[in-house]
């Protein structure tokens, strides 16, 4: 057996599917004002924060769950979920990693995310979120030296209230859509990043999300602010144990780029996708939105979506500043009974704004993939351009691939170009590879990696290698 085969056998089953047996503190089941007060209280939040949550909850009560999406799912009972779950050992925050529950350390080691700083050689600072709380943030000191703030958002609410107060909800207001509003009401933890003026963040920042407890919704909130002339690259990874029931993950991510700043946000999403018959798996309903607030700012989203039973998200850019740039690179792979409805929104408001969308969708098995995107050039966005390319690859005749772009051009000096293709892997390509000694699965892996290359190139080095493997593994068993 060659190495690749071994690796595949190792990974054939969802390798992150274990759960950690750990004592939890949970909020009472259900959603009501008391639960929100409980969350706010346990996090020792100031009054304005509780007010923010309650305002969102008021709004949430009048909203209806949207139903226009392509993947349909059984109605979620929002009263049957736990909105807060944390390892008991986290009740009084450990001062350092040495005080951290060994069980937690071990969990992260198993996931391949060692939290001990000495163990990390590749220089990525990690914020690890376990269910509803952030358990550890590495490389804090080094970052602090440069004035960079990288900490759990619950900590930032205490230590940097002025920044949080100013920017939280400025891109995704409390009055937004159903899931975003739910998140605003009950969000538990997530990362907070602030890069001061003119600083180029020396290392990749990373958050690792883990859902452990069952019947728990994870509602994390990430807020990234890049001040004038700064740069940051941020990575996000996710896994969850194998469970029979569907779990909800409804996160909000807000990015704000001021003048000349650049934010690069990469996601490798590998939530538990459910078993081969489509049982279980995570509902990944995430709201991600970036605001290019200043002149010459840039926000770039890169996503590799291989996990989740249902992925439903549209990382978006609001190009408000003149000359700002928005980019979206996406690979979405669905297999078995997975469903994805993903894409982006590029809203051009400023002059000379540019956006680029590259989306690659691959569907296999009985899965269903939809690209849904909006390009909106307002009448004031003079001289703006957009280029969109979305390609889909189908494997087998039980899956579906759909493209639903909305294109709005209100400015005669702006240009929009959109292209989309749908096809299967050609017999010639397969034949060519097999003739040169690759087996059918390797041949498909190679061709798919070539298909995705444009997007994989955008990922930071370490993640690109990881993602490339993930692409191969996700399609395992879909050939022949």
């Amino acid at each position: 057996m060659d190495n690749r085969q071994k690796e595949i056998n190792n990974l054939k089953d969802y390798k992150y599917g274990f759960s950690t047996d750990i004592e939890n503190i949970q909020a009472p089941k259900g959603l009501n004002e008391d639960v929100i007060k409980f969350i706010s209280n346990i996090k020792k939040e100031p009054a304005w924060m509780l007010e923010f949550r309650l305002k969102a909850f008021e709004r949430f009560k009048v909203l209806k769950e949207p139903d226009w999406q392509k993947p349909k799912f059984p109605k979620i009972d929002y009263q049957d979920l736990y909105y807060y779950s944390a390892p008991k050992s986290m009740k009084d925050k450990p001062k350092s990693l040495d005080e951290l529950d060994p069980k937690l350390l071990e969990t992260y080691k198993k996931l391949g995310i060692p939290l001990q700083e000495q163990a990390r050689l590749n220089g990525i600072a990690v914020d690890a979120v376990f269910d509803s709380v952030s358990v550890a943030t590495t490389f804090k000191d080094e970052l602090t030296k440069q004035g960079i703030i990288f900490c759990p958002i619950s900590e930032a609410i205490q230590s940097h209230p002025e920044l949080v107060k100013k920017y939280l909800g400025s891109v995704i207001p409390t009055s937004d859509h159903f899931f975003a509003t739910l998140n605003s009401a009950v969000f538990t933890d997530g990362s907070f990043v602030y890069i001061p003026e003119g600083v180029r963040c020396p290392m990749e920042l990373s958050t690792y999300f883990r859902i452990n407890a069952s019947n728990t919704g994870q509602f994390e909130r990430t807020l990234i602010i890049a001040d004038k002339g700064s740069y940051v690259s941020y990575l996000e990874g996710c896994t969850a144990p194998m469970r029979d029931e569907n779990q909800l993950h409804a996160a909000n991510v807000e990015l704000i780029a001021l003048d000349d700043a650049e934010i690069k946000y990469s996601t490798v999403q590998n939530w538990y996708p459910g078993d081969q018959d489509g049982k279980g798996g995570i509902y990944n309903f995430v709201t991600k939105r970036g605001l290019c607030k200043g002149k010459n700012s840039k926000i770039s989203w890169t996503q590799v979506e291989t996990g989740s039973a249902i992925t439903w998200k549209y990382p978006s850019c609001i190009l408000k500043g003149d000359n700002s740039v928005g980019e979206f690179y996406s690979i979405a792979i669905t297999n078995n009974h997975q469903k994805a409805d993903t894409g982006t929104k590029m809203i051009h408001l400023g002059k000379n704004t540019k956006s680029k969308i590259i989306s690659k969708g691959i569907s296999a098995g009985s899965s269903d993939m939809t690209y849904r995107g909006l390009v909106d050039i307002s009448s004031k966005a003079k001289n703006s351009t957009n280029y969109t390319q979305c390609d889909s690859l189908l494997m087998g005749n039980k899956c579906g691939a759909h493209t639903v772009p909305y294109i709005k051009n209100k400015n005669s000096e702006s240009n929009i170009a959109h292209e989309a293709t749908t096809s299967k892997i050609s017999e010639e390509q397969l034949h060519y590879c097999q003739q040169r000694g690759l087996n059918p699965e390797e041949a498909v892996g190679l061709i798919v990696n070539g298909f995705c290359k444009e997007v994989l190139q955008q990922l930071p080095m370490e993640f690109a290698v990881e993602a490339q493997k993930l692409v191969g593994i996700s399609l395992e068993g879909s050939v022949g």
Partner: protein
Amino acid sequence: MKEQLQKDFDNSIKNLSLSQKDIEIKKFCLDNFIDKGFPNRKEEDWKFSDLNQIIKNNIGELSFYNDQTSTNKVDTSVFVDGLEHNKIVFINGRIEKIDFEYEKKDQIEIIDQSETINEFENSNSLSDLNNAFTNKCFKILVKKGYQLAKPLIIYHTTNSKIWSKNINLRLNFELDKDSSLRLIDLFNDTSEKNFLNIFYNFELKENAVLKNYKVDKFENKNIKYSFNNIDQDKNSISETFILSSGSNFSKNEINCNLNGVYASAFVNGVFSLNNDKHHEIRSIINHLTESTKSYQLIKSVLDEGSKAVYQGKIFVNSDAQKTDGYQLSKAILLNKESEFNAKPELEIYADDVKCSHGSASGSLNEDSIFYLMSRGLSYQQSRELLINGFLLDVVEKITDSEIKNLIKNMIGIKE
């Protein structure tokens, strides 16, 4: 609006000799429409064109009863010169003339089908409205193996006798095996502020060929909605060309079901708009069986605050292997206030398919204008030349050379 609808419905029923059952059906459709009203932007298919608002803003209160007891005089000056053709003439929604003078009488049958109602997939409340108020519906049957010698032109004429009226039309066509029909819809309105609601149903049997050209060229202040349903059997071909220009608001919907192998559908359209006009083309091509083909090309030139919308959908069933689907929409925005919206959609459930779509919108290419001006043309001439070439591309897709020339002359496009 509800009382008006009820009152007008009772009036129109009075003048028709319908059976109790037909009245029941019509009443049912009316109730459906009263329930749903005119489509508005909350419905996905009407997202870019809120008909409810458009009618409110442009017409205000509509009335639905058409007194069709007296005949209208047919104005022969509207007839197309220089092309021998068969005629159907609608004046204010009333059929005044059906004339197949160039054809063998026994090969074409005209059947009165007034009691049947439309039941289309992908339709909306407007089909209910149409069902409730149409009073004459004919089916034109072209018999097996017969190919019409001359094209059929349907004149849709309205005159100043009517205003703020809703006119509902319906025609059914059946093209039997190996038959062919060339059909031109020509709109000629001297009326203002009416809402025309037109439903066509085409049934194409094996090897049948349908060429449908819709020409809305003359300036008018009416609001038009037209729905074509085309069912295609094995080897049949449908070609639809839409020139969308004259009306204040117009929406053309084409729903095409490719039911038989090797069936193919072509949809080509030109939007040439100015003066705050708002036009839309929505096409749905359903590839339901294997080895079917569709091709769509839509081009728009938008001036002075006009707005064009193109929603095109290619649906490929899981049985429809070896589908070939292509779709391209291009727009030139000439003016700051003009707007182009597109939703080119693919919904695919089969893997061995070739489907692609493209959409581009932008301004006239300054480099091209510079090139032409440096060769001695004025700015205005260069602009016209470029627009001419841009639109000619679509007109050239018309496969019937006689009609191609006719349409070229109408638009004033030169080769």
